[in-house]
């Protein structure tokens, strides 16, 4: 019974913790401009994150080595260092977007200027990182994040023509109002949002934090293979809501208030309140994950003591890194940049950094020195290589497409 409860908790946390500001914004923007014609990318992205999150978790559980330790070990100081710089900056950008997202969601709930919320949000994130146990911070934000199911409820209440939605999703074509380059630019953005590198840093380091062993691999596989796809279904619900309400009215998503507009229209104040709570939890959880990831990447590259399972004084440089990163992120926000714009850039840059992150995981997952009998199966390797190719193409195309399309304008 206890075991079943544990499995259920893990899956629910994975669903609620799957979405972050990147998924929210990108899916709503795409829904409002392209309808459901890019749903296939979300599905491709979810399968990809399942493959690599599961692989990085297995490597961490079997060998005790988290992802960035492996990146450093396999790529060496130069290529590993380049990856560190890129990953750290992208992570900082994502963290900035998440803290901004918390503030925007709180603004929706309170009508108080977001710049007043930002310092409070950053302080709250730090306090949780400083004092709360890993397991608790992961479970609470994950479970409250389940409120985002409100997007699914809203979709049902809107009563769309399901057949039409389904055929739009299964017969993707570029809308006449948009160019091909823009279509592919947003395809890469969606892919980057689903496969953000911080998720594997967090997932593999979390395996070490929770002291997983080979015995926990079954549970972790269920969490990933059930939780992530259901979380991805919420992504699609967000896009579908935008398709039904925003697309026909030519409303372009430029703020969080437009993302939740379909929810308010369908379910009124009550459902809106639930969804805002979900957004606060999802962005807060992701702000915790990205702050931790900034500490994880730096500490693992340089071989510092790290982890929330240690007292802050036993992992001092790790905690200092998180404090400094949060302060920089807050500083960026206080200049008055639009968090939604920061989000749109962060997901595309994420796509650029993906190959250097996922290649070392794939290599080490095949190394019996690390994995013993738990090396990748043949089918897993085929999937991994196919995805690495897709990731490489997306990474190479991202920047040129960004320039050509003027970042999707």
């Amino acid at each position, binding site marked *: 019974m206890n075991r079943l409860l544990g499995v259920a908790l893990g899956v629910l946390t994975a669903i609620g913790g799957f979405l972050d500001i990147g998924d929210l914004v990108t899916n709503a923007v795409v829904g409002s401009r392209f309808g459901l014609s890019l749903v296939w990318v979300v599905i491709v992205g979810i399968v990809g994150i399942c493959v690599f999150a599961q692989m990085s978790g297995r490597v961490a559980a079997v060998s005790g*080595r988290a992802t960035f330790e492996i990146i450093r070990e396999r790529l060496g100081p130069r290529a590993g260092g380049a990856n560190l710089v890129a990953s750290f900056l992208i992570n900082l950008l994502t963290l900035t977007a998440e803290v901004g997202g918390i503030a925007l969601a709180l603004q929706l709930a309170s009508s108080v200027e977001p710049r007043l919320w930002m310092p409070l949000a950053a302080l709250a994130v730090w306090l949780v990182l400083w004092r709360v146990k890993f397991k608790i911070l992961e479970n609470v934000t994950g479970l409250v994040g389940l409120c985002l199911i409100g997007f699914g409820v809203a979709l049902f209440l809107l009563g769309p023509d399901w057949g039409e939605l389904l055929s739009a999703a299964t017969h993707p074509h570029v809308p006449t109002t948009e160019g091909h380059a823009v279509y592919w630019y947003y395809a890469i953005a969606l892919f980057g949002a689903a496969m953000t590198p911080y998720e594997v840093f967090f997932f593999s380091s979390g395996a070490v934090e929770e002291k997983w062993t080979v015995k926990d691999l079954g549970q972790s596989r269920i969490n990933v293979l059930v939780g992530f796809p259901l979380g991805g279904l919420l992504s699609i619900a967000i896009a579908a809501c935008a398709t039904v309400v925003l697309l026909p009215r030519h409303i372009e998503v430029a703020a969080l208030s437009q993302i939740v507009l379909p929810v308010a229209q369908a379910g009124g104040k009550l459902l809106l309140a639930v969804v805002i709570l979900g957004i606060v939890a999802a962005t807060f959880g992701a702000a915790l994950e990205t702050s931790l990831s900034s500490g994880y990447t730096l500490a693992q590259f340089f071989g510092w003591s790290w982890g929330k399972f240690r007292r802050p004084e036993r992992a001092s440089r790790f905690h200092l890194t998180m404090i400094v990163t949060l302060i920089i992120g807050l500083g960026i926000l206080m200049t008055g940049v639009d968090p939604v714009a920061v989000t749109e850039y962060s997901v595309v840059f994420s796509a650029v950094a993906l190959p250097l992150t996922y290649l070392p995981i794939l290599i080490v997952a095949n190394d019996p020195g690390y994995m013993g009998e738990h090396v990748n199966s043949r089918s897993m390797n085929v999937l991994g290589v196919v995805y690495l190719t897709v990731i490489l193409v997306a990474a190479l195309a991202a920047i040129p497409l960004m320039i050509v399309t003027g970042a999707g304008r």
Partner: protein
Amino acid sequence: MTASSLPRPPRPRGRVLDARLHLLSRQVLDRHDVPVTTIDDLAFSPVPREGAHDREEVTGARTYVVDALLTGAALVVRVFGGRAPTSVWERVGWQHVSDVGTAIHLGVDGDELDVTWTERWVRDKIIRHIPGGRHDPE
């Protein structure tokens, strides 16, 4: 002389380690499994002549042993090239190494080693002064 007529080199005893593959960039853990550093470079020194093989006298080859694991400035050198003065090397003597696996294990406390001075500095100057820094998370 054909290749087959050359004498086969003696097989070394014990495990064969490729320094580049099995040592460089690996994590170094202390005796409580707390990370100490990553191996940024290695310092070698020649085995003293009197202990050397006769064959080496003939070929001129010398046997080198790993003296210490290097970190700190050694990383900058590995990334950008050049040569760092020996005074700025941060070293962990090889005598502290107790096991070489997917991570390198030491038989001592990380806190006793010079290379962890930044960790101690940040801890003593900053982290300990913030309330709650000395306690387990709740």
